[in-house]
């Protein structure tokens, strides 16, 4: 049985369908698995240009795995991932690399190359994909570090700075090539609440200034409510995506599981028909 996910409070979804404009990001019928073990199936959602799309769900439900499928780190075997209406899955290796060059990815722990200084970390993609001189690359690296509040740390190695700074430096590197889509894997993990809020503000400011589309994997509720234009919820129990919509609407009108998640586990009243649907889903999974 294929579960139908619903869209709630998502202002862009209506505009997209009526104007027949391809969304910036589209995931169709995606199935995620580790070998023969299926983690999640029938994932369908879209993200418009300039939108902040949040992938949320409980620990171990496959949020980071979904991100890996979206950026091409894991091979899609069932379903499709489209960028600007073009299939990323069916594209040739060269076309894929071309699309990947429009991505910027901030990994959970920053993933900075430990043998390179921060300036060299940011400089590597610029050396590879532009014809800028060493001096221009250095200036750009300084600018990117300034944008994340790390001016003056150009010659530091990742091991010489704190975890929060590493994360910001990772963001500076992700922005090196002025990406069209920025992916964040748990950006707030390991950060104090103030640093976490500042990072959220930075994400929004970059989105507003550069028009970048942002995909964020997180389960941090304050971040979800602060930055998300639209969010999808992955449910580990039914192995399906339950809903896509604005979290501020979902917390009031979403499925009970999503409301419980967004209310930090507070019990919500479940209508009888929803209970029946949930039971059907569980039976279908067996």
């Amino acid at each position, binding site marked *: 049985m294929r579960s139908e996910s619903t869209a709630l409070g998502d202002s862009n979804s209506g505009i997209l369908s009526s104007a027949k404009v391809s969304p910036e990001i589209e995931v169709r019928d995606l199935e995620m698995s580790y070998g023969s073990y299926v983690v999640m199936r029938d994932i369908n959602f879209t993200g418009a240009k300039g939108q902040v799309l949040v992938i949320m769900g409980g620990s171990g439900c496959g949020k980071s795995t979904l991100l890996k499928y979206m950026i091409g780190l894991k091979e899609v075997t069932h379903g499709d991932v489209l960028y600007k209406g073009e299939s990323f899955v069916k594209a040739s290796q060269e076309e894929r690399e071309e699309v990947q060059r429009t991505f910027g990815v901030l990994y959970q722990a920053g993933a900075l190359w430990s043998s390179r200084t921060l300036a060299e970390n940011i400089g590597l993609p610029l050396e590879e994909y532009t014809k*800028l001189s060493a001096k221009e690359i250095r200036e*750009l690296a300084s*600018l*990117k570090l*300034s944008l994340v*509040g790390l001016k003056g740390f150009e010659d530091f190695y990742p091991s010489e700075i704190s975890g929060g700074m590493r994360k910001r430096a990772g963001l500076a590197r992700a922005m090196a090539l*002025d990406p069209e889509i920025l992916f964040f894997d748990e950006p707030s993990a390991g950060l104090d609440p103030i640093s976490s809020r500042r990072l959220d503000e930075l994400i929004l400011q970059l989105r*507003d200034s550069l028009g970048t589309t942002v995909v964020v994997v997180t389960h941090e509720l304050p971040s979800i409510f602060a930055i998300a234009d639209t969010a999808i919820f992955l449910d580990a129990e039914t192995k399906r995506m339950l809903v896509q919509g604005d979290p501020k609407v979902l917390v009031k009108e979403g499925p009970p599981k999503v409301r419980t998640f967004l209310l930090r586990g507070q019990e919500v009243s479940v209508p009888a028909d929803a209970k029946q649907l949930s039971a059907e889903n569980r039976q279908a999974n067996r």
Partner: protein
Amino acid sequence: MKQATATPDIERPAVKMERTGDQLKLVLGGDWSLKSPERLRSETVLAGLEREPGLRSIHCVTNEVKSWDSSLLVFLWEVEEWCKSHQVKFAEDDLPKEISSLLNLATSVPEQQTGRGSRGRRSLFYRLGSWVLGQIDMMLAAVEFIGECVLSFRRILARRGKVDWRLYWLTLQECSAEALPIVGLISFLTGLILAFVGAIQLRQFGAGIYVANLVAVAMAREMGAIMTGIIMAGRTGAAFAAQIGSMKVSEEIDALSTLAISPMDFLVSPRVVALFLMMPLLCLYSVLIGIGGGAVVGTGLLKISLVQYWNQTVGSMGLTDIVIGVVKCSIFGVIVALTGCQRGMKCENNAAAVGNAATSAVVLAITGIVASDAVIDVLIEVLKI
């Protein structure tokens, strides 16, 4: 105005300067793209600004900019920095909101005074002095580590130290049975090479039979121990450094310390003891296989019978030769284990440091083996053993 994307018709970015009294207007135009081969050098514009004395403010106008990305931001950022250093007002009023907000973001946190900029200008003497001090620190750390190891043994013997016995048996296995194939192969080839070199010279005097003496004594006193030591330095010493280094990076060592379990007792001592105990056995095995390699040349090239070769070997070698080799090999084992564990324990907190720890463990161990072998040989000569 839109952000830069890959388009075939790219117009060269341009800047026009229009001065009115003490105000300067920079009129920017064209496509500002990092990927464009046609780029504007900010140095040219900044040099132009230097030639404009008495400026009080600079306005940047971007109405004619067709597309932009970080290259425009860098340019404006540098102009702003120039204005700051020359006490000239940088007027952002004419800039689009998205650009001015990014510029504000870039300048909102002042530059940290980290002192890193002056690093490259140190004198040769300063760098030489730093290197010497670094080497002294390293030697002191090695001596300290040996001391800690001795204290650890004392704790273990007094049954006050917690030892990972599972690790001990695993290390014993790694240092013995699992090392036999590589030690056997290298020793066989070493014996073979020694016999070849000896055979070419001794055959000229009709003394080919003495190849057996040469191989036996060389393998028993020197080559068996040295080759085993070098193999174990590359194989086991590097593994010790990488294993303990990875544990350091993932804070496993800290986790032991916080439980009041000494990492020296738990991780280092079992490895040192295991290698110390297994090296003599590996050395004997190496000597035997090396003699076998020599016998292949003796019987094949010099046409000496196997029995004759064996009798000559046994006659040429005394118990002292074997004991010397075995003792040396035990010492080499301790050197390999200590350098491997010490480099691992001193590993920095990043992935590259683990590789560096493994490399330096091997280099230090091989240097230590060769140096200590020389010292032992001199002592043997002095003591007439």
